[in-house]
């Protein structure tokens, strides 16, 4: 599968760019912000972690830029990001991995759901051209896709939590509860996830509905769809296998490109809801000038996005035989 290998290469390249940016940006900023940060570590952590941070931020090292860079790359590959200031003295990797499941559960599930639902609605809407779905929905979704995520989050808190009291307004779980794999906890976590999930879903789904609808309309105009009708195939099959499978292909690549917006939205939503995921922790680290943690989280976000894109590429390769034949 040449195609997938090529995409993997792209994955590695982009990751490398992100890592290099992590390395370069603090060095390029005026005022040496890292120096101030370093002072807060002194004497409180083990030398290895200290050294890792020094390398990452270029403080108190006597090595050349290139050597620092190489060492830094090595550290990154081994997961040595240093120690977090916010959750002192946890190593960064520990905190990062703690936040990850929350985000995967909330953002991951919701995004996939939004994509699948959006694609489905777009497909059906375009299939029934001129129907209610097709004429009423697009303008509505054009507007909802322009909503700022955080505003919708605030609105939903106000409405569903404060006014109506149906759902909790913040956190990933009730702090009086014990964390663990119990049904009670799971139910509680679910309750806390509803509002943030709804916010993300409503805002993200619009774009995918619209593009799937446009794709489907142009696919429906293709000869092979007319041929399928001419063959007297069951309309569901025509819509699904002939129109749908072809219209979804550009949507999958579009998925990759719109992930940036979803990430931005997820960060803001977690912030507003105080939901203990990667985005929330990321902003905490920024507030606390906990650069080590921030860098680790940034890389995690990049890896997650790239993985999602890679998954979409694999799906494209599976669905479209023409990609497999590309030499």
């Amino acid at each position, binding site marked *: 599968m040449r195609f997938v290998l090529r995409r993997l290469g792209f994955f590695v390249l982009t990751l490398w760019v992100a890592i290099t940016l992590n390395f370069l940006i603090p060095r390029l900023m005026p005022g040496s912000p890292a120096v101030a940060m370093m002072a807060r570590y002194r004497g409180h952590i083990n030398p290895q972690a200290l050294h890792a941070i020094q390398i990452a931020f270029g403080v108190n090292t006597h090595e050349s830029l290139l050597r620092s860079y190489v060492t830094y790359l090595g550290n990154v590959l081994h997961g040595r990001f240093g120690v977090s200031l916010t959750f002192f003295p946890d190593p960064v990797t520990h905190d990062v991995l703690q936040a990850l499941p929350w985000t995967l559960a909330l953002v991951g599930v919701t995004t996939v759901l939004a994509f699948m639902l959006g694609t489905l609605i777009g497909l059906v809407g375009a299939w029934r051209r001129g129907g209610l779905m097709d004429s009423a929905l697009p303008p509505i979704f054009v*507007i909802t896709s322009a909503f700022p995520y955080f505003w919708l989050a*605030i609105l939903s808190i106000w409405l569903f939590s404060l006014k109506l009291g149906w759902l909790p307004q913040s956190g990933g779980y009730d702090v009086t509860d014990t964390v663990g794999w119990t049904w009670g906890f799971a139910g509680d976590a679910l309750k806390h996830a509803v509002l943030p999930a709804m916010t993300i879903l409503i805002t993200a789904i619009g774009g995918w509905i619209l593009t799937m609808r446009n794709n489907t309309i142009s696919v429906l105009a293709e000869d092979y769809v007319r041929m399928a009708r001419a063959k007297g195939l069951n309309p569901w099959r025509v819509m699904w296998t002939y129109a749908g499978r072809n219209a979804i292909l550009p949507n999958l690549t579009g998925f990759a490109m719109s992930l940036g917006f979803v990430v931005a939205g997820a960060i803001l939503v977690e912030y507003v809801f105080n939901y203990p995921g990667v985005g929330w922790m990321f902003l905490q680290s920024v507030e606390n000038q906990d650069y080590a943690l921030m860098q680790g989280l940034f890389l995690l976000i990049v890896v997650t996005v790239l993985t999602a894109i890679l998954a979409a590429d694999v799906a494209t390769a599976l669905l479209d035989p023409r990609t497999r034949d590309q030499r």
Partner: protein
Amino acid sequence: MSASPLGATDQLATPPAGPAPMVAEVRPGRGGDLWRAIRRNKKAVAGVVLLVVFLVFSIFPGQIAPYDPTAEIFPPALGVSRHHLLGTTAYGQDIFSQLVWGTRLSLVIALAVGGLATALAVLVGVSAGYLGGATDGFLSLVTDVILVLPIFPLIIVIAAYEQNAGFLTLVVVLGVLGWSYGARQLRAQTLSLRRRDFLEAAQVRGERKSYVILNEILPTMTSLIVATFLGAALYAVLTAAGLQFLGLGDPNSQSWGTMLYWAQNNEALFAGMPLWAIAPGVCIALLGASFALLNYAFDEISSPALRVRKLERAKLQTARPTPALPSPGETSDGAVLRVEDLSVAYATDAGPVVAVDHVDLELARGEFLAIVGESGCGKSTLLYAIARLLGSPLPGEIVGGRVQFQGKDLVLLEEKELRRMRWRDLSVVMQSAMNALNPVLTVSQQMEDACRAHANWSKAEIEVRSREVLRLVSIDPVHLNSYPHQLSGGMRQRAMIAMALLFTPDLVIMDEPTSALDVVAQRSLMVQIKELQEQLGFAVIFVTHDMSLVSHFSDRLLVMYAGQVAELSPTKELFDRPLHPYSQGLLGAFPSIHGPKVRLLGIPGSPPDLAHPPTGCRFAPRCPQVEPRCTAAEVPLSTVNGSLVRCVLHETGT
């Protein structure tokens, strides 16, 4: 092409060939046209109105806002009142004034980032697309990397290091990171434009590359550039608001995002003052919505396919000249198809157009009927109307007439019954197999489709039949497992014909199935079709623009002009003694290989505009034998020795 960042119909730098992006052809001309189009489109109007309101707010804040937005002189946390339209903030500032003054910053950010990002996108995208080669490879790679890197976290990282990022930094960073989406789309469109001859023409003319990019390429991409701008502006509004909300912008600046920041900081919801958060949020949403609406509306205006037009039947002429054929009834013996008085119309911006005008024809069992005509005569529309397959991209609805096939009127049949008849009794062969075969299914899967829809065969039986039909057209059955793009052009066409014969239908309709092939392959395919027809006994309706192609194969020839039947004769008759001046003209327009070399004339002029068809004979303006009575009244079909012709010169009492 929508450049909304929330979706894309474009592909990554190494794309599979999917449905092409719906790139819009620029229709210039009077700005009045565009203005009218905008006025008609509700979304565009909404978008423009919103934008204008905000523009006014941003240009004249002092005149509209009642108070100084920063003045903390009022009692804090007031509700809505006459003096304070939206109440006051936690610090005693008037919210409404803040909103109005905040417009300026938000709008400036949107427009500045939009401009910067668009400029970069155009620069990178068009250069990559036009210059190609290594430049393209490099630029595309850079574009893709930036596209994929999550920008919001990256900006947060940058802002984290640099405290109090100023307005300029914000604009520059947003602009420098936000061009990649637009660049991809511009590159894609440039690539598709490269194949357009006018670019090559400019190059051959000797124009410099820079001239070509600036003066030949960019003007044709104005709609895409505008779309890119709107998309970038939307992205800027939302991202900037998000950053300011987080407190990463200058918290003392006047903007909606900062208002939200302070609202959050002062726990607007708990303080029972939701308006602190709702008001600026609504403004952000509305500004964003205005860009999104304009973007979407622009799409619709430039890609007519996206719009749904209703056919105004009331405007159609329903009068019809006296019928030429005896009164219709059931399909007579020996006739496999009988079309009576069939009319097809479709909606255009200029009103309804009748593409097929009261056409009658009858087809005997096993007969080969060729329908000949030039572009716009309605032959393909007629063909697909008979098969009840109208719809995008061949628009149209049947607005009158009957299609008698196997004792039933196809026009009146329900979809379900139609489907039962399809392929078993009536199958279709289209012009381009590359387009007519589903690119993601193998040949055998597509045959299986048809089989399963109409018969209860087992998998083994299906395979046997599939192999059989492939052998009929001399294709090695090993190709059953190939995808369409893996077969050669001629093989694909023949595979399509094979598929049409799976159930040995009574009637096969063919829409120019040979025009994508070269002359030698055309000839052999025609011979093959004829042999199959004689072997299996199906009738054929064959649409073509090339009369000589069918001269040895068709039993009768129907010549169409401007949606009407001009002449219908046995083939040999038509070639030896063409009755209608149009048929004569057509025959005279084909230079011959053998025989004397004479100067030909063709038929100067063009067919009439069917949106406003002329009275009387539609060929009159181009006819060398025209008389005044030609345009006086509608010309009916006359019968002359077993041929039908619509011409006053041969007029008989019907």
